[in-house]
């Protein structure tokens, strides 16, 4: 990392660290809330904060469009969703800007933030992001469209159709596969037989690249370059960020039915958040004081958001009929 440091200021590195920590702590809180019966469902970002936050840092807030997938707590926070909004969706309350509590937690979407609404069927967001890029190109907007998905999801037809379309039409879209090695219980070798997911880029004639998803500077660099290519009319990029899913698939899963504690613990050694923290500390960029300041600021934010969201009302049942069609 150190040799790449010049591309990001200390301030930026610290900001990235802050958002990674914010994502992690928010996620941890949601598990607590789930285990204590407060919220029925969590799907987690843990282990993927580095790739999520770093990629988002390479985008232009308020300009670029994102189509995040269900694990992207790091993306949505970095792109401007507030902690309060995040918890409103975890509690499925009326005020939740993502869906007003209509969707399960983890189904993001926020028009003011240029964030497309996502669904549960995986990979449908890829063509959407491509379509958004088509509109940006047609309207000659200096912006890109950024979309994420899991490595398992890269086997859906929509991945293929979306990337091919984007390439034929040279569209400004960045597709980032968050390879966390698992699709629920299925390891990567049950999902694909290629060496790297980014090997698929060749079949679309686009730029493909695999980066260490635990290394935020590497991810940032790759996405930044992809964004520049996209803005230069050089078309889409496929970036694979390799990490590990540190939690079970969701709060409904028991991952020890298909992987071992040892494997998970080994992965924790490579946890991007921990390593980045150590690096920043070693480099003297992150001090103990700064860190504890972040931790307490984050805790306060999360506490406040939790209380607010917990107490906020659900949507009234009368609203059931709203928004089927334009009214």
């Amino acid at each position, binding site marked *: 990392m150190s040799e790449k440091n010049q591309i990001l200021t200390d301030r930026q590195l610290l900001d990235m660290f802050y958002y990674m920590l914010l994502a992690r702590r928010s996620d941890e809180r949601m598990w607590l809330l789930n285990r204590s019966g407060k919220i029925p469902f969590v799907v987690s970002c843990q282990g993927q904060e580095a790739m999520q936050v770093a990629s988002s840092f390479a985008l232009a807030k308020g300009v670029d*469009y994102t*189509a995040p997938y269900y694990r992207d707590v790091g993306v949505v926070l970095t792109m401007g969703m507030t902690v309060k909004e995040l918890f409103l969706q975890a509690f499925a309350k009326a005020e*939740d*800007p*993502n*869906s*007003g509590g*209509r*969707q399960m937690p983890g*189904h993001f*979407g*926020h*028009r003011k933030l240029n964030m*497309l*609404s996502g*669904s*549960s*069927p995986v990979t*449908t967001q*890829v*063509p*959407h*992001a*491509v*379509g*958004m*890029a*088509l*509109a*940006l190109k*047609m*309207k000659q907007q200096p912006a890109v*469209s950024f979309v994420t998905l899991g490595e398992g999801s890269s086997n859906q*037809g*929509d991945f*293929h*159709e*979306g990337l*091919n*379309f984007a390439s*034929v*039409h040279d569209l400004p879209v960045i597709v980032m596969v968050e390879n966390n090695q698992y699709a629920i219980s299925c390891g990567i070798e049950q999902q694909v037989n290629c060496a790297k997911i980014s090997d698929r880029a060749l079949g679309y004639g686009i730029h493909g690249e695999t980066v260490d998803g635990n290394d935020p500077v590497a991810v940032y660099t790759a996405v930044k370059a992809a964004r520049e290519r996209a803005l230069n009319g050089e078309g889409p990029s496929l970036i694979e960020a390799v990490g590990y899913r540190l939690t079970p698939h969701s709060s409904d899963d028991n991952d020890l039915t298909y992987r071992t504690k040892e494997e998970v613990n080994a992965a924790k050694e490579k946890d991007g958040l921990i390593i980045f923290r150590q690096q920043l500390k070693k480099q003297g960029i992150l001090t103990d004081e700064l860190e504890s300041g972040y931790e307490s600021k984050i805790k306060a934010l999360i506490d406040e958001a939790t209380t607010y969201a917990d107490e906020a009302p659900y949507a009234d049942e009368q609203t059931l009929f*709203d*928004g*089927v*069609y*334009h009214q």
Partner: protein
Amino acid sequence: MTVMSYIEAINRAMKEEMRRDDDVFLLGEDVGKRGGVFRASEGLYEEFGEARVIDTPLAESAIVGVGIGASMYGMKPIAEIQFVDFILPAVNQIISEAAKMRYRSNNDWSCPITIRAPYGGGVHGALYHSQSLEALFASQPGLKIVMPSSPKDALGLLKAAIRDPDPVLYFEHKKAYRLLKEDIPDEEVLIEIGKANTVREGDDLTVITYGLCVEFSKKAAEKLATQGYEVELVDLRTVYPLDEQAIIEAAKKTGKVLLITEDNKEGSIISEVSAIIAEHCLFDLDAPIFRLAAPNVPAMPYAPPLEKAFMVSEDKVYEKMLEVAQY
């Protein structure tokens, strides 16, 4: 007034809307240089250029999915599916995404996309170029399904579909393309989506249908009039969601109802029409609710005797009308 065929009316609708609104564009297979395999988009490529008349790769899920993404930017895509039979790879994008976008995002996002596809039989198209697939989508709130029965309706309904703030499936009968011609005003024609149309008034029996069967029914009704029976003929125009009020009133008017579709009978649009009548005006009826439809075989075969046996025709309609009238 100008005499126009059904397909010319469709062409005119697209041209007018593309001239009126820069955000309207067309995408699909062979819609550009070739002007569509039926030539529905003839002249559009020349007038609006390849940026707004887009030949896509052969991938329907992408055609619709990319259209959805562009529509989320605020564009007004017309996605052409070459034959309705080939819409099936795009069902996930249509039902999971387009239909649910507004609802799931609590009115934050919407999909003003029009999906056009030729449907229907009697053209030696065999199993996969003759189907009526509207029933498949006609249980999905969030969608609207429009099926014009005449050149003028084709014009007015397509223009309304393109302007509609929600996703509209617009199914055009490929046999009607060149078979049906009529005088159409040169001024703007807009027809409201969601409303049925009384094509003919009569007191002896009510026929409710849509698409090309309206034409069969008009002719059969004229013939039946010579037998002294006057048909109240209602064209549904929008087959989903149905115009309940119009259906109920038409059924009540004569007390004898014949429902017609060229689709397979079981689970078709007219099943719902029947259920509406049975729920709301059962005691106004003097006869069972009759249905005339294609038989419950998978799709229309190619060999002429089989095609003929399968397809609803003016003769079959006439015979059934007479039976109901004499009931």
